[in-house]
């Protein structure tokens, strides 16, 4: 830790007061804590699909961002695809990176730790014998996922490890990947 930074105001760009306020409010009104996240997708061509993301439900009502995000997914050329965009599984890994990093920044702000850089490098093992139906004993999804963080911050190694551990504990995507979820698919 550098002494010049110790007295500086910690600013990771996270409004912790607002988050703590929301936590208190949602503890008192659990129904407002019920959120629904949505995406809609359109197949473009081949393995290329584009998704649109805007509205969600939360705090008891529909929320409209007033703008739309698009996330495209495709497969690479080694799969004889056009490689217009990342694969869906890379988007999943991106989701894990985004969720854990947001957690690190928020928890660091709450613990008054100034971050300078946070880089996550993520690797997921996949045996294609699963999705290609070659071996029924191989699962389609990742066999394992490894996340490596490089964090430059005004904190001891132990405090940084604690940040990363707490971020996993409170991460939605980490939970989604480590625990089963019932998924219901229907055709209209």
């Amino acid at each position, binding site marked *: 830790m550098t002494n010049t930074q110790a007295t500086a105001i910690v600013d990771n760009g996270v409004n912790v007061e607002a988050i703590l306020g929301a936590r208190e409010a949602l503890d008192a009104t*659990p129904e407002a804590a019920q959120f629904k996240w949505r995406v809609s997708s359109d197949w473009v061509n081949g393995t290329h699909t584009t998704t649109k993301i805007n509205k969600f439900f939360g705090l008891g009502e529909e929320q409209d961002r007033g703008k739309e995000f698009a996330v495209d997914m495709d497969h690479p050329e080694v799969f004889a695809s056009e490689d217009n965009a990342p694969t869906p599984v890379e988007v999943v890994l991106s989701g894990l990176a985004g969720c854990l990093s947001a957690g690190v920044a928020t928890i660091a702000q709450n613990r008054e730790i100034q971050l300078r850089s946070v880089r996550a490098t993520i690797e997921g093992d996949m045996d294609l014998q699963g999705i290609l139906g070659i071996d029924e004993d191989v699962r389609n999804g990742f066999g*394992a996922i490894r996340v490596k963080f490089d964090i430059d911050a005004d904190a001891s190694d*132990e405090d940084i*490890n*604690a940040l990363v*551990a*707490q971020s*996993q*504990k409170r991460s939605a995507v*980490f*939970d989604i*990947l*480590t*625990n*089963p979820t019932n998924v219901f698919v229907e055709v209209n």
Partner: protein
Amino acid sequence: MRCVSTVIIGAGQSGLAFSHELTARSIDHVVLERAEVANSWKAERWDSLRLLTPNWQTRFSDYAYNGPDPDGYMSMKEVASFLKDYAAYCSAPVETNTQVLSVTAADFEYLVKTTNGDWLCQSVVLASGACNKSNIPGIANEFPNSVSNIGLHQYKNPEQLEDGGVLVVGAAASGAQIAKEVQTSGRQVTMSVGEHVRVPRTYRGRDICWWMVATGLMDTPYTEVDDINRARKVASLQLMGSDDRADIDINSLRALGINIVGRLQGLRESQALFSGALKNHCALADLKMNRLLGTIDEWVNERELNSEFDPVHRFHDTKIDANTPLQFDLSSNDIKTVIWATGYKPDYSWLHLPVLDRKGTICHDGGIVSNMSGLYVMGLPFMRKRKSSYIDGASGDAADLAHHLASNLKRKAA
């Protein structure tokens, strides 16, 4: 119908300590006990259990263990006999074999109905404990009929279990101890591990409880904790009271041949599904343990007492197998029993007062029940201090709350 100033429900350490404080203040009261003094300790724990705290810590403000083995750990029989002696020492007015049927409010008073008649009183102390029922999650109902579900209140010893594999869910003191003795009995144990609190039995030559008392951690007041609701839900320390004072942690349990898996998350037909977050749950426990040891070292350094204790050291991190299974077939692994070491919860089914939140937790401020004048609770985790749920915490909490109760009675009389 009998009238009395205060009814104390439960004659364990909390009820007896409270009675002692009321006697000292000449407040007439009665202690209602569904069975005998210290019934939970005697009848509702497993056979081999010993206190997690050393004998010297088994103490009230003016009454303590004075036997030959201050560093040992009492069996449940010994705890019951210690509390019985304390009840006699205090001349506590205990009505045994008196089960409370209901507590209701009636015109600034409380009506307590029991199997031995009714009481009308101005204040009630809920000292029936935090461990009346086994806390068994709903997923237990989804297990196939070929598997017996056993809660902490039913488990006594390995001999009561069918031959075959055993899944122990939970890794706090109860889960760790039960997993150990069941595995030692020759049944293959798989232990499902979620968040837990790892601590060594001894550190630098002293019992971990000694350190927690010396450094003041046991006396941390509830008002000085960042998130008291979370602190009150923390699982018990992963400890065991035994003659060899051995650590009981994931590493030592694995060395016995126990299969360690993640938190139980679901069941699909005969497949139990476990969380892939095991590594982080163990990393959190290792980090917290090292923080505690760091606090101890700092305390020693500040007082320049290093020469009085064994040298600083750190324990091996929890080892997690990279191939830890996420699925586990109950029938092919011959699982006959699931032991739910998933904690205890209080039973307030007889408490007909609007004092519970939506999760069934009693709303209180340091034991003073919210919005219900004259109602107190005792013995809950981190109620007034970290040691509130320990025998060693009963006297202090009772004194504080008895003081509040006494001024409340005076105000009513005025």
